[in-house]
């Protein structure tokens, strides 16, 4: 049994202190230690993007990061975006544009897009395609996702 490390992680605005094995992946930590199961694991080798979360505001593959590396940092997951009765504009946009089907890859897309839309408030469809080219969706063919992002940009630009 390996030695346990103490970590302090601020996640979705709440501070979590835990003792964990150093080899525990951040994705497993979020899903099983913190019971935040919105972040999904699709491949564990950094290709599909389903596990994307924000660490200090930047998108990161949580399957390629150890939880101990996040200690002292701020993590945002999809649970930090909104609630079913109080959706974030990007979540509303995905709903209205039918930007999801099975929903498994969706949290990863949303977290990738939050920093993207911050930097690119008026993206073209090509800009969006490139921004999401690191996230795999097997259900939608991406078209409604791109529609959703354009709609989200509109919603988020309103004062």
């Amino acid at each position, binding site marked *: 049994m390996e030695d346990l490390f103490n970590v302090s992680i601020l996640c979705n605005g709440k501070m979590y202190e835990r003792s964990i094995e150093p080899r525990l992946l951040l994705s497993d930590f979020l899903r099983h230690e913190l019971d935040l199961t919105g972040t999904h694991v699709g491949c564990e080798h950094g290709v*599909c993007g389903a596990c994307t979360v924000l660490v200090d505001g930047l998108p990161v593959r949580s399957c390629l990061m150890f939880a101990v590396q996040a200690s002292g940092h701020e993590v945002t997951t999809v649970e930090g975006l909104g609630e*079913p009765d109080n*959706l974030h504009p990007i979540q509303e946009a995905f*709903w209205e544009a039918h930007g999801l089907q099975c929903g498994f890859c969706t949290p990863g897309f949303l977290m990738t897009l939050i920093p993207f839309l911050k930097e690119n408030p008026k993206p073209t469809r090509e800009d969006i395609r490139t921004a999401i080219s690191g*996230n795999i969706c*097997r*259900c939608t063919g991406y*078209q*409604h996702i791109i529609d959703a992002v354009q709609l989200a940009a509109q919603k988020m630009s309103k004062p």
Partner: protein
Amino acid sequence: MTKKYLGKPITRNEDPQLLTGQALFVDDVDLPDMLHAAFLRSDYAHAHLKSIDISAALEKPGVVAVYTADSMGDDWAPGPPLVSPPPTVKDVVFNSRRQVPLVKDKIRHVGEAIAVVIAENRYIAEDAAEDILVDLEPLEAVVDLEAALKPDCILIHDDLESNLAAQLVQNKGDYQAAREKADLIIKKHFVIERGAAAAMENRGIVADWDVKSQHLTVWDTTQAPIPIRNGLAARYGLSERQVRVIAPFIGGAFGPKMMMFYPEELVIPWAAIKLGRPVKWIEDRRENFYATTQERIQIHEAEIALTSEGRVLGISDQFLHDTGAYDPYGLTIPLNTQSHLLGVYDIPNFTSEIKVVFTNKVISTPVRGAGRPQGVYAIERLLDMAAKELGMDKVEIRKLNFIPPDAFPYEQNYIDQAFAPLIFDSGNYLPAIEKAAELIGYEQFLKVDQPRYRSEGRHVGIGIVAFPETTGVGPYEGARITIEPSGKVSVATGVGTQGQGHFTTFAQIVADQVGVNPRDVNLVTGDTAEFHWGTGTFASRGAVVAANAIHASAKAVRKKILEHASKHLGAPEGELEIEDGQVRVADIPRMSISLGELAELANPLRGAVEPGTEPGLEATAYFGPQYGATAFGVHSMILEVDVETMTVDILRYVVVEDCGTVLNPLILEGQIHGGISMGIGNSYYEKLVYDDNGQLLNASLADYLIPMATEMPYIEIEHQETPSPLNPLGSKGVGEAGAIPVPALFAQALENALSDYDLEIRETPLSPNRLYELLTSKG
């Protein structure tokens, strides 16, 4: 009764949960005292298993148990057959060999499960699995289909005489006679390679045996919870009541999650019963490439016989189908291929022989398209080649051969995958191809745009193909609808949902009949405790079979509502209308009662329920179609090839689809987009590569290339509605339609773009490498 909701692009009921990460997928299930499983899988494709030493694994702290085939004792048995051989065709060869829970004596594909470790967490379980020592004697692996059938080839199933799993010949008319009358005969060899479904969610199972209540609950990423429940109950000597199988939200399926009684589905519940603690197994991505089923290869020797005017007299196709190490799905995929070998065309003569071959590869079971793309590939390619020989336009040759609209129902006179005579129920192909050609600017492209591109040195080409899709097969589905005292409506049906939007389309059907808002319809799918009669979600049948069961049940509830309301309001049923949850007398709005109140009244605390009636406002109904409805479509694309990098850019993509009555256009388009992305994958990017030793060489998403947003075109869809006469809603399935024509379309467009190279494409998928090889071998 007006269609207020059906056919409208209503946003989905299930999205808020999914968007906020609050939807339950199997890996989200967390039970107290839960254990975790990891499987030890074979590194060899073909080997005798001599002994297994689990002692080192057992000693690892945190390991609770290690099981092998021997541990299972009498509970060890191969999975049950999922389909039987076709009874109505004579001279069928059918050797049914199914997958086993854990290898007993022979390993037949890389990744086959040899042992399972149950531990306190997955990390420990995987570590311990590596400590298991396996002694085996490697054998030569059988990989090539043609070599597998040679008499001196090593046998994969030693009790058989050869590696032939099944053989079947089907005939229509007299192909030999037709051939003799033909002016032109073209014979070609086509190869369609292996591909995976690669859903974003890998498979998983959580099994919980409650000793005190003697009840087994299983969460499973399956498309078929009801057959799984029935099978597990039978296998472990339980009553069906003692087993509950739940398919919660599922992260995509596309076919392989319909495969039933995977080794893990046999082992994990067994382990949970044995240990008396819940056990969870979640597949990782690499495992998915070995442990979840895939589809194909098929090798076709196809021939077309035509008149000099381009009229097709007959089609002949002898093909080999690779089933992998076992064949639980029998002839399903190749029968689907046969059903589509004549395309949407009126071809009077046909002969086709299927040979299903065992190989030392992962089991092949239906993946989106399920054999249909292969049939369409053959016929559309042959037509293209015939058109070229005869100097005919590709659209013209198709139009000339279409089944005319007055010929329906069109009997094909051979059988389909449901073992019933293949009949196309309805269709109207001519307007579809004309519309597609118009939308993409077919004439304009060939006459004006393409010559201009050529003069600029650009290789841009156009393709257009037509295809049928058999959908909506039985046997049946059912649904139960209940009006609750709150006025909300609760619905239960047996099919599962893996992203198709059932929670919404089905709600729309109910809402129209019962007079509520779809948002007030709460649906449960895929939970055997809620509804336990049905088969599953597969073969593009949800929108046909389940939807019509829901429709029938909703109509029955509506009838009860009107009966009760009529009594209560003292008005004849004919004068009543239901809207926004209220039943009222038309023209006298103050004479009304809410559905909720009516539901309470229908469930009396005093008094009696009259004989021949039932309490409450609830109805259960079933629907089983006579045979499957045939949808169809036309796809067209313009693509550009860079002859230096061999990369392909799709400039335009047009679809005209006809799936009968449209239930929800938003969801429909999503299905088509998704299907096309898999079709594009199967055309240029996705190929599972096995080496001569049966080793899968690209078992990761880094090497198995799934189309990303940058590979996808903007898809323009036009709808046509030729309702099906086979069901009250007039609907047909569409789940696989997007994927079916794409490889054939891609080949045609590429050849057109590279016409200065005189290229003939007879395989799929291609790739930049492969295209380069084909072009340079031309010199």
